[in-house]
């Protein structure tokens, strides 16, 4: 196990200051909860001279509903998400994903921004935010842009941000009344477990017809994936268990998993099917309520 590299910690109290530090300092990295970064630095050599702690920046820590969007600041912890009535009622898929993650200790430190920027293919917040068609606000000193959440992920454990950029906020349109969403996961024990596969579904039904269907899977490719082809087969149709079964089977074929110490690619394909079905069914059932 490696000793931590010799970095300096900076504790800016404003976003502006943090961006400035990121832009000026050499080999600087942001740190939020540290629940992924510290273990990573213990495992492999990380070339870093400065860590920019984001925890003092009040403007990055919020959950609110505004102008038709649910907006979540980047340093919002997983515990904050779990404690949020808004998230629980409007985006149960996101709530379930946050609640499923790590231990209480990890949830108290781990953040939404950290989970995304760590860019693990198994990131539990990936699928629900994809299914909610969330966007991430990416900021640098001179620029501010919104990108679809999927674009944060550039490859296994690699995000798409430039060195001077920060992910500052995640937002998604407030799901309308009658929309349903759900998250499902399979691990290797009942708590504190990395996902072998995770899945999230979002469904809107109108007059018995599926108006919107979105489905995303994690730990089945180099990044969390939307199941576009599957979604198309659901939209405009009257939902049934048979249809969901059929579409889920398709998901088993759409994914591109690998073998690793946790599971084989084959099993992940199979579980993609199972979890797709479970997530879709659960989301569908939630539409009515």
């Amino acid at each position, binding site marked *: *196990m*490696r*000793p931590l590299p010799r970095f300096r910690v900076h504790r800016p109290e404003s976003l502006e200051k943090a961006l400035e530090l990121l832009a000026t300092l050499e080999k600087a990295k942001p740190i939020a909860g540290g629940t992924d970064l510290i273990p990573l630095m213990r495992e492999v050599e990380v070339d870093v001279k400065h860590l920019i702690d984001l925890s003092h920046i009040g403007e990055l820590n919020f959950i609110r509903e505004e102008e038709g969007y649910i907006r979540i600041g980047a340093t919002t912890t997983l515990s904050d998400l779990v404690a949020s009535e808004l998230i629980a009622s409007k985006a149960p898929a996101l709530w379930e994903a946050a609640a499923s993650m790590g231990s209480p200790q990890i949830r108290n430190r781990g953040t939404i921004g950290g989970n995304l920027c760590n860019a693990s293919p198994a990131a539990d917040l990936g699928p629900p935010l994809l299914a909610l068609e969330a966007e991430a606000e990416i900021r640098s000193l001179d620029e501010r842009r919104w990108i679809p959440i999927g674009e944060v992920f550039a490859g296994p454990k690699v995000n798409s941000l430039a060195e001077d950029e920060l992910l500052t906020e995640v937002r998604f349109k407030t799901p309308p009344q009658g929309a349903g969403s759900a998250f499902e996961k*399979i691990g*290797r*024990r*009942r*708590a*504190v*477990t*990395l996902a072998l596969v995770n899945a999230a579904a979002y469904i809107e039904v109108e007059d018995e017809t599926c108006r919107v269907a979105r489905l995303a899977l994690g730990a089945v490719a180099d990044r969390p994936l939307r199941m576009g082809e599957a979604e198309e087969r659901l939209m405009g149709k009257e939902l049934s268990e048979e249809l969901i079964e059929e579409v889920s089977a398709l998901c088993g074929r759409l994914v591109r998993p690998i073998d690793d*110490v*946790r*599971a*084989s690619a084959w*099993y992940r394909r*199979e*579980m993609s099917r*199972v979890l797709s079905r479970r997530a879709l069914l659960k989301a569908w059932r939630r539409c009515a309520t």
Partner: protein
Amino acid sequence: MEAEEILEELAERGEFIVIGRGVRRFDALDKALGRAKFTADYVERDALVVKVVRSSLPHALIKGINIDEALKIPGVVAVLTAGDIPGENQIGYALPDQPFLNDVKVHYVGDPIALVCAENEEAAFKGVEAVEIDYEELQAVYTIDEALSEDAPRIHGGEDNIAVTTRVRKGDIEEGFSKAEAIVEDTYETPYQEHMYIEPEAAYAIPEGHDKVTVIGTMQSPFLVREKVAGILGWNLNQVRVIQALTGGAFGGKDDMGPLVCAKAALAAVKLGRPAALILDRDESAAYSVKRYPARIRYRSGADAEGRMTAAEVDITVDCGAYANRAPFWLWRMTAHAAGPYEVEAVHVDGRAVYTNKVFGGSFRGFGDVAMHFAVESQMDMLAEKLGLDPLEFRLRNVLRPGSRTTTNQLLDHSVGIEECLRGVAEASDWWNRRGEVKRIEGKLRGLGVACAHHGISTSRGAPDWSAASLILNEDGTFTYRTGICELGQGSQFGHAKIVAEILGAPLESIRVEGPDTDSTPNARPTHGSRGLMLGGSAAADAALRLRGRMVKVASEMLGCDEGDVELKDGRAYDRRRPENSVSFRELAREMYIRGVSPAAYGFYAPPRRYFDPETGLGVAYPVYTFAATVAEVEVNPETGEVKVVEVWPSMDVGRAIDPLLIEGQIHGAIAQGLGFALTENLIVEEGRVLNPNFKDYVIPSSMDMPRVSDVIIVEKPYRHSAFGAKGVGEPAIISIVSAIANAVYHATGIRFRTLPITAERLYRALRGEKP
């Protein structure tokens, strides 16, 4: 003789003062207050940090070791290699096959080569990275079959890769099978299991003057540690003082690892004249420390039409890994328990342990009997099915009873409670009503499985075993009790105190236990083999009985009554005929000191010696056996292959329950460990490299994974030759749970697993027709 009579009298009182009750253990409070000291808590800030340079190859010759670059790193004080060892560069346990620091050849990925001693962690780490090893890579051997093949490289020279062999020839095996109505045959494989104690191995050594060293460490055998440290240093035993710190879980692993880590810290401290600490990182501990030995068992057994076992033919191969370590003992244990806790007329067993270029195996709770019973209990289920019998009923027809003979033809004349255990769990789980059809609940399959276990206590094959303890009556009437038996979480020392309290009529709180310190503690031999309470506690009883005799004598003179009328109770000596006539232990102690009656006693205990013939494998394999039976209910999700253990009904014949709460604790913990071994713990070793040396990917049960555990059914069939009849508990607890889960999975799904763990993926594949 007289002492035995007193003990018998005490044991027959029926009503005990502290024995048999769950009493708050006295070490618990400090642990709960965070005041208990573990090895790392002793380390001073200025101590040298020791880190191990390890082999990166599974099998290679060492052509050169270059430490120059490492020595240039600021903070690195020294790099020690084989040439720096003053004593013998050898630390093998059973066989002299294990160099302490390798300078000729490495035998597995992780084999120690050098020790970097530095002022801090960072320098030590960089020093390790900077040591250059020049290897000539050799062909490596990874599997049992590779090891046994004709052209396999010989890992330790010699004619083959076999470290040791065993055999049992009991009865006429042909005749046995000819009487059989049903015969089943299969091959079982069990994998490594990593201990994953929450506290990693640690040692802290402090040089004392020029010719003595004190070592504080995690261990189970302080006197073995002393012997090995002295051997490495080339010193006498009395130049090494070993203190066992409170040890954060051990389960056998720290018995083997204790000498290895302590000797490294001691060598650094002595060579450099400064305190030195070696604390393994989690990934080091998980990848390079000993593991449960993997094993392969070919098993053929038969039973007659009445459902009686007639024959068992067993072939065992243990995968030692790089060094034999405990393999001879492990293999003998499997061999001697090969027929399970059942009466089988004809038993043939052949066993061998083979070397491979992987991390070496070693002690782990259950010591071979987990694997052996996995095979036995699977066979029993299969035979029952073939005969159309209920598996529990079939077991009841065959279990050992007083008068039965074991695998090695050992006659068991008493202390055999397996039948009561089995009947107990059958009733508690409502087996006869619930084991019928498989229940389906919301698409999930429920199954019920049963398994039995037996486990010999103490060392095998009549090898001498003994234990010692000391007890001092202080001037104020309190007692200082010393034992070399370690506190590892199991609470044996507390059990000893209860035995002493019971014999002396002393309040439990008046007895203070001093744990292992080889300079002052009698040698109690190791805390393994579930012997801590039975052997150690019997030595405690011996010391207490000796002291009691003197206390009674002086008390009778003080009270003016016959010795036979003296009763010791509540810290006082009474005249039984005139209870108002009494003296306190304080008064009694003072009187003993004044009269020059020794207030100290040295207790010694050895179980009766018996004969064992290693050629035929027949004779008394162990002094006595603990028995256990378990029923488990599982719920299988066919959609994912996940197994949830719903409830477990445990039972055990413990001889005598010194403390039910301690027994319960051992059984609960073993259920968790057994559940992990059966379902999720899956050490992945590829080309000799452990790929998941962490809690993240080596999955031990969390609080969310534990089933409901029904009240432990305690059966008491006292052993005649131990204090109050107690037998060991810690190891037997893990044996039957593993097979009970596997058998329950079979009941739920019709799929019999011959290898473990039954991970969700493996079960899912099997449910879709792949060979399990």
